C-alpha cells in the first residue's frame, strides 16, 4: 500500500510544464537566430570565443533540460558525460588524426551509450537518490581520467592539447569566427531536434513519466525504456557539447571536468527555467558571465557576491528566465490591445 500511495500522492519533483510552453514562438526564434549570426561580425575575437563557449554550455544545459525538464530525472553527473565527450574528441583528433567535425558524432554516440547504460541502474532510483548517484559519477570521473591504465591515451594529469581547426575552403575568417559558426550550426540543429523530440511521441512519453509515473505506465508507456532513453539522449548531447568544448578550449585535463562543472550546468538550467529550452542559453550566459561580474565587484569575495546574485534571482524570479519571458509577453499583449 504505502509505496504506491506515496508515489501517487507525492507532489512531482519537477513541476509540469505544458509542451507548448517549452519553446519560443517562430518570430522570436528567428530574431534570436539573426542576433546570433550577426553579432560576431562586429566584435573582437575574444568576445567571439566567449560566445562560442556560451553556445557550448548552452547545449550542455539544454541536454540537462531535456532530462530534468522533460523526463523529470535529476542529474548532477553531466560533467562526466561532458568529460567523456571532450576526451573522445580530443583523443580521436590528436591520436587517430581524425577530422574534428567527424569526432563530434562519435563523441555523441559514445556518450549516448554511456548515458543509456548508466540509466539502467539509475532506473531504481528517483529524486534525491538519483541526484546522489549521478553526483558519485561526477566525482569519480576526474580520477578515472587520471588512471595510469589510460594514460597513454588521456595524457593522465597533464591532459591533452588539441589543435584548433582553421576555416576550411580558404574562407577569409579567423579560427575563432569559423569555430563559432560551426558551433552555431550544430547548436541550432540540436535545438531543432530537441524541440521536435519533445513534441513527438517520445517527448510526450517523457513528460507523462515526469508528471506521474504510475499513470504513464498504466497508459502503456514503457517507463524503463523511456527513462533510460532520456538519459541516453541527454548524455549524447552533452557529449557533443564536450567535444566542441575541447576543440574551442584546445585542451582537456581531468581538472576541467570536476563536480563544479556539473553544478554550474545544473545552476544554468534552474536560472534559465527548468523545462524551458530557450532558457538554456540564458542559463549558459549566467554561468559564464556572472562569475566574471562577481569578480569585478570584489576579488576576495567573488564567491559571496555570486551567491548573493544567485539568491536574488531565485528569490525574485523562481522560474528563471522563463518567468521574465512570460512577463514580457504579457506586457506586449497589453500594448497590442491598447
Amino acid at each position, binding site marked *: 500500500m504505502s509505496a504506491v500511495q506515496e508515489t501517487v500522492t507525492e507532489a512531482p519533483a519537477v513541476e509540469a510544464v505544458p509542451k507548448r510552453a517549452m519553446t519560443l514562438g517562430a518570430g522570436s526564434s528567428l530574431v534570436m537566430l539573426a542576433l546570433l549570426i550577426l553579432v560576431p561580425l562586429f566584435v573582437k575575437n575574444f568576445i567571439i570565443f566567449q560566445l562560442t563557449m556560451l553556445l557550448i554550455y548552452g547545449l550542455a544545459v539544454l541536454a540537462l533540460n531535456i532530462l530534468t525538464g522533460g523526463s523529470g530525472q535529476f542529474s548532477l553527473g553531466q560533467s562526466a558525460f561532458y568529460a567523456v565527450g571532450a576526451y573522445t574528441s580530443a583523443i580521436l583528433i590528436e591520436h587517430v588524426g581524425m577530422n574534428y567535425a567527424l569526432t563530434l558524432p562519435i563523441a555523441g554516440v559514445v556518450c549516448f551509450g554511456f548515458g543509456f547504460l548508466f540509466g539502467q541502474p539509475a532506473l531504481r532510483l528517483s529524486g534525491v537518490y538519483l541526484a546522489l548517484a549521478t553526483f558519485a559519477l561526477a566525482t569519480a570521473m576526474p580520477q578515472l581520467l587520471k588512471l595510469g591504465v589510460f594514460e597513454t591515451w588521456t595524457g593522465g594529469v*597533464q591532459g591533452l592539447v588539441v589543435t584548433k581547426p582553421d576555416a576550411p575552403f580558404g574562407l577569409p575568417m579567423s579560427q575563432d569566427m569559423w569555430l563559432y559558426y560551426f558551433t552555431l550550426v550544430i547548436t541550432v540543429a540540436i535545438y531543432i531536434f530537441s524541440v521536435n523530440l519533445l513534441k513527438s511521441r517520445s517527448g510526450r512519453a517523457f513528460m507523462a513519466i515526469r508528471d506521474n509515473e504510475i499513470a504513464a505506465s498504466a497508459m502503456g508507456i514503457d517507463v524503463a525504456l523511456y527513462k533510460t532513453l532520456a538519459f541516453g539522449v541527454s548524455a549524447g548531447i552533452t557529449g557533443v557539447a564536450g567535444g566542441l568544448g575541447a576543440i574551442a578550449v584546445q585542451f582537456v585535463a581531468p581538472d576541467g571536468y570536476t563536480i563544479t562543472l556539473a553544478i554550474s550546468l545544473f545552476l544554468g538550467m534552474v536560472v534559465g527555467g527548468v523545462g524551458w529550452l530557450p532558457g538554456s542559453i540564458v542559463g549558459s550566459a549566467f554561468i559564464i558571465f556572472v562569475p566574471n561580474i562577481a569578480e569585478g565587484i570584489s576579488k576576495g569575495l567573488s564567491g559571496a557576491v555570486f551567491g548573493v546574485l544567485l539568491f536574488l534571482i531565485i528569490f525574485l524570479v523562481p522560474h528563471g528566465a522563463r518567468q521574465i519571458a512570460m512577463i514580457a509577453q504579457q506586457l506586449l499583449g497589453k500594448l497590442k490591445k491598447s
Partner: protein
Amino acid sequence: MRSRLNLLIAAFSTTVIAFAATTGSALAQKKYDTGAADTEIRIGNIMPYSGPASAYGVIGKTEAAYFNKINAEGGINGRKINFISYDDGYSPPKAVEQARKLVESDEVLLVFNPLGTPSNSAIQKYLNARKVPQLFVATGATKWNDPKDFPWTMGWQPGYQSEARIYAKYLMREKPDAKISVLYQNDDFGKDYLKGLKDGLGAKASMIVAEESYETSEPTIDNHIVKLRASGADVFISITTPKFAAQAIKKMAEIEWKPLHIVSNVSASVGGVIKPAGFENSQGILSAAYAKDGADPQWDNDPGMKKFLAFLAKYDADANKLDGSVVYGYGAAQTMVKVLELCGDNLTRENVMKQAASLKDFAPDTLLPGIKINTTPTDFAPINQLQMMRFKGEKWELFGDIISGELSN
C-alpha cells in the same frame, strides 16, 4: 603690429618644430609592444582565488601588494605597473578564457606567474602562438623548461624532478643500502616527483621497495603509512602536500616507526606542517629549500628578510608571514620587476623574453643565501639550486653545500 605678429608666429613654429624634433628622437629610442607605454606597463595574471586551490590565491595578493609598493616608489623607469589578476578557480577552460581576456581585451604586455600545472598547460599553446610571454609560471613541473618548443614560456621555482634528484643523490651517497618507501600524491606533482626520484637513482631504482599513492580527497592517509611500514623500509620519502605531510608525521610517531624521513619542499613549512604535527615528532626530518622560511627565527636579522617584513608591514598588513605563499609571491614579483628594469625603454615582448633569459646571479630577498637566479637562452629554469636541511629543535638547520638539480647529471 604686423611684424610683431609675424615674429610671434615664427617663434611659435620654431618651438613646435624643436619640440617635434626632440620627441621624435626620444620616440625612436623607446620601443613598445601592446601593453606598454610611457606611463604604464600592463601585466596579466591568473590565480585560483576560488575553488580547490584557493589557498594559493595569497600569492596573487602578495604580488599585487608588491607592485603597489613599486608604484608608490615611482614605478619602473617612471612607468607604473598595472597588475590585472583574474580568478580561474583552478579550472583549465576558465584559465583559457581569462588568458584570452588578458591578451585580447586588456591587452597586457605579458602574463606573469599564472598558477597551476593544468591551467598553465591549457594556456601555453595559445600564448606561444600569440607570442605573449608566459613568464615565471607558478608550478614546479619540469616541462616549463623547454625553450626550443615553447620559447615564450618560463618557469620560476625549482622543478619537482630537480628536487627529487637531490634526495636521490643524497641517499646514494649517505645510505647506499637504503630500502626506500615512497608516499606520493596521485597527480602531476606526485608523479613528476616520483619520476625525478627514479631517474636520480638510475640503475639503483630497485632501492625503492614500496610505493603508495593517495588522492587529495582521502580524509586520512594512516592506512598507507601502516602499509609502508610493513614493507620493512628504512627510508620514507613523503611527496605530499601540507595537510598530508603533517598527518604522516603524526601517524609515524603514533606507531613508532622511525625511518629516515624526507619531506618534499612543498610541505617543509614550519608554520603549516611541522608545528601542527608536533616538534617532538619532527626531529631529524630532512628536506630541501630554496627560500627562507618566514617562521624561522634564524632569519630575523637577515637584511633581505628585514626588507620583506618591512614590505609586509607597510603594504600587505593582513598577510601571514608564516605562509610560504607570501614569501613565494614576494620573490616572484621581485624577479618580474628586475626583468622589467633590465628591459629599460625597450618594452617589446621579444626583449622581455630576452632579458628574462639572461638573468645573471640575481638573488631576490627571500631566497636562501647563495641561491641565485640564472637563465640563458637555452636554460629556462630560473631557480635550479636547493640546500638540504634537517629539522632540529624548533627550526630547520641547513647543512651541506648548495646542490644543483640539473637534469643532465
